[in-house]
């Protein structure tokens, strides 16, 4: 019999019951809550007269709506204010631990979870947010759910699920200078498409993935959903355990030793069989830039915008034509000629300390191009912000002409005041380039933090590999 994949192990470990109708009841160890997808879940509990089954299995923080400017006067937008207030009220009423807006630990849920050691290897974890796949970087089965399932987990600590198929994405070799985790995951999405991972849990493996820091692995798993997969995974190794050790919610003492022993099995067996295997060579990956309105519409920075006339599939051809029209771009022109208006460095994909160091290594000693209307850096949490300031990164950014903001989701989805105006092009370290995602009529280009910083400095995309970087910062940020 073939061995088990990491996903198989996590699934079996959380199986409460297998039902006759082919569904399974799966135990959910922990849930993250934020203000956008939880109010209706709490309301559902209230209407049904139910209570959260295990309070300690939930951690909340507001992130989508919070302002990234001065917060001393609260939230100006009354609708956003009510939503954040509703989260506060629900958490207070039921006794759920919440890092409120004025707490230094507040931030984007997917940055806060790992930072606090609330995310642990071997867990099942959900959140009413598709980027929950991020936590799979710790060898945890983590996936996004809708609000009905948020309520389901609150009430029962379980979900009715179907087992997914197993996909292995293997990236072997050594990543080149200036090539980051973001470029790897964009290249993967370009390869398999935005629906390529539908119905699958993707395990990312290979020497290039192993060599990544935990931050890099989180960036990769974060965007598994952009390839259609609800679950992204990386096997547990020494880096995982080292990262978790000593964090506030991590096990301590004897329990720590016991946990580490249990976590050592969190990898796919050597003879495990996957339903699909995709292999990429690290050496083939160069910095990536999306040109269109789906993350699969991606090209290397030295490439050209595609020509729909060369596409034989009529649905894809129409998709390219529609995207070119929306993005106001011309076929066969270089990626480096795309005009840019704004730059956004942030989001659950790329707002961890390493991402900020990577961008700072490019920004140091340089200035944002006068043709860029706004360049902003939004740390992923209050603690990331504090750490960055302790390292002096904020000074590097502000001296270069970037705005240094308070933590939150910000312009990734523009639910707060940070957004693109219609027609503006933005170099963004976020995860989605859908129409209107960063503001109605806005045009998003997804890139790594280093590429975004380089674009800010030059006013257009450049190949970050050709820039001289601050050596010290480049070293710590692994942009070697």
């Amino acid at each position, binding site marked *: 019999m073939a061995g088990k994949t990491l996903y198989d192990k996590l699934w079996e470990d959380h199986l*409460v*019951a297998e039902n006759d*109708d*082919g*569904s399974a*009841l799966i*135990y959910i*160890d*922990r849930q993250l809550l934020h203000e*956008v*997808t939880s109010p*209706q879940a709490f*309301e559902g509990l209230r209407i*049904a007269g139910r209570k959260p089954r295990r309070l*300690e*299995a939930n951690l909340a923080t507001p992130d989508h*709506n919070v302002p990234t400017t001065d917060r001393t006067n609260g939230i100006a*937008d009354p*609708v956003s204010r009510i939503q954040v207030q509703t989260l506060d009220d629900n958490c207070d009423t039921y006794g759920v631990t919440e890092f409120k807006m004025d707490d230094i630990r507040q931030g984007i849920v997917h940055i806060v979870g790992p930072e606090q050691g609330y995310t642990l290897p071997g*867990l099942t974890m959900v959140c009413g*947010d*598709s980027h*929950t796949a991020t936590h799979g970087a710790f060898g945890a089965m983590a996936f*996004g*759910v*809708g*609000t*009905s399932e948020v*309520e*389901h987990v609150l*009430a*029962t*600590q*379980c979900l*009715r699920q*179907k087992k997914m198929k197993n996909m292995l994405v293997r990236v072997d070799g050594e990543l080149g200078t200036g090539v980051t985790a973001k470029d790897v995951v964009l290249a993967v999405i370009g390869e398999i498409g*935005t*629906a390529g991972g*539908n119905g699958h849990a993707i395990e990312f493996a290979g020497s290039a993935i192993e060599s990544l820091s935990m931050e890099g692995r989180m960036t990769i798993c974060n965007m598994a*959903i952009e390839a*259609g997969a*609800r679950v992204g995974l990386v096997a547990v190794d020494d880096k995982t355990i080292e990262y978790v050790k000593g964090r506030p919610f991590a096990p301590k003492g004897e*329990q*720590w030793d*016991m*946990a580490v022993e*249990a976590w050592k099995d969190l990898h796919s067996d050597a003879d495990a069989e996957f339903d699909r295997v995709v292999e990429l060579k690290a050496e083939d990956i160069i910095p990536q830039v999306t040109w269109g309105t*789906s993350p699969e519409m991606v090209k290397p920075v030295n490439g050209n915008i595609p020509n729909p006339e060369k596409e034989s599939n009529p*649905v894809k051809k129409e*998709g390219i034509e*529609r995207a070119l029209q929306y993005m106001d771009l011309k076929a066969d022109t270089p990626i480096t000629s795309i005009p840019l208006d704004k730059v956004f460095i942030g989001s659950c994909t790329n707002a961890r300390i390493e991402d900020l160091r990577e961008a700072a290594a490019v920004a140091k000693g340089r200035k944002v191009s006068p043709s860029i209307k706004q360049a902003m850096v939004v740390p992923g949490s209050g603690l990331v912000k504090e750490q960055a300031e302790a390292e002096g990164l904020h000074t590097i950014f502000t001296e270069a002409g970037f705005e240094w903001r308070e933590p939150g989701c910000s312009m990734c*989805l523009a*639910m707060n005041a940070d957004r693109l105006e*219609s027609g503006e092009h933005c170099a963004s370290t976020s995860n*989605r380039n*859908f*129409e*209107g*995602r960063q503001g*109605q009529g806005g045009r998003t280009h997804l890139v790594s933090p280093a590429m975004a910083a380089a674009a800010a400095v030059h006013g257009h995309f450049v190949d970050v590999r050709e820039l001289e970087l601050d050596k010290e910062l480049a070293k710590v940020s692994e942009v070697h």
Partner: protein
Amino acid sequence: MEAFTQHTGLVVPLDRSNVDTDAIIPKQFLKSIKRTGFGPNLFDEWRYLDHGEPGMDNSKRPLNPDFVMNKERYQGASILLARENFGCGSSREHAPWALEDYGIKAVIAPSFADIFFNNCFKNGILPIILDHTTMDTLFEQTEANEGFKLDIDLDKQTITMPNGDVISFDVEPDRKHSLYNGLDDIGITLQQEDAIAEYEAERSKRAPWLFSS
């Protein structure tokens, strides 16, 4: 949740692939703390020519005459045809809430994104997967025949065309059962309380660090 047993309705063809949930219901409407009222803002950025914000009187906003759902012949449609990977992106359940509030009972496409597909079943909407050839036929027939309706029978798992042709579709038994009977999923799970408690007791021995706070 409202049960879905049988439905006959007007069909509207949305001939686009990779329709994401940001397009189905843009982010500014996600600030609502209610489950209802999202219908007027379904596909807001495609449907209207101006920028929509919560609280606007949508009846006074300029409609985009080129958007298929605004065409006179598709008014009152309750079955949506779409292309590959419908509902990709964000997990927002506001997307099926908006479809449901608008009056959509079923979405037919060659494939769906996983989270959206799952969310539909929680809200009385039947997502149906059909092969590309059948989808092409449905798109052609809908566009060629004004007032084109389909009759969907969940129990029999069939779609009947106006000419009497019958298309069969698959649906997982557990999802079918819940949707057909309009069941409360949480209620069903709570019936397995003994199994959950037994699992927790066992897991708290294996992984005590998850149970000690």
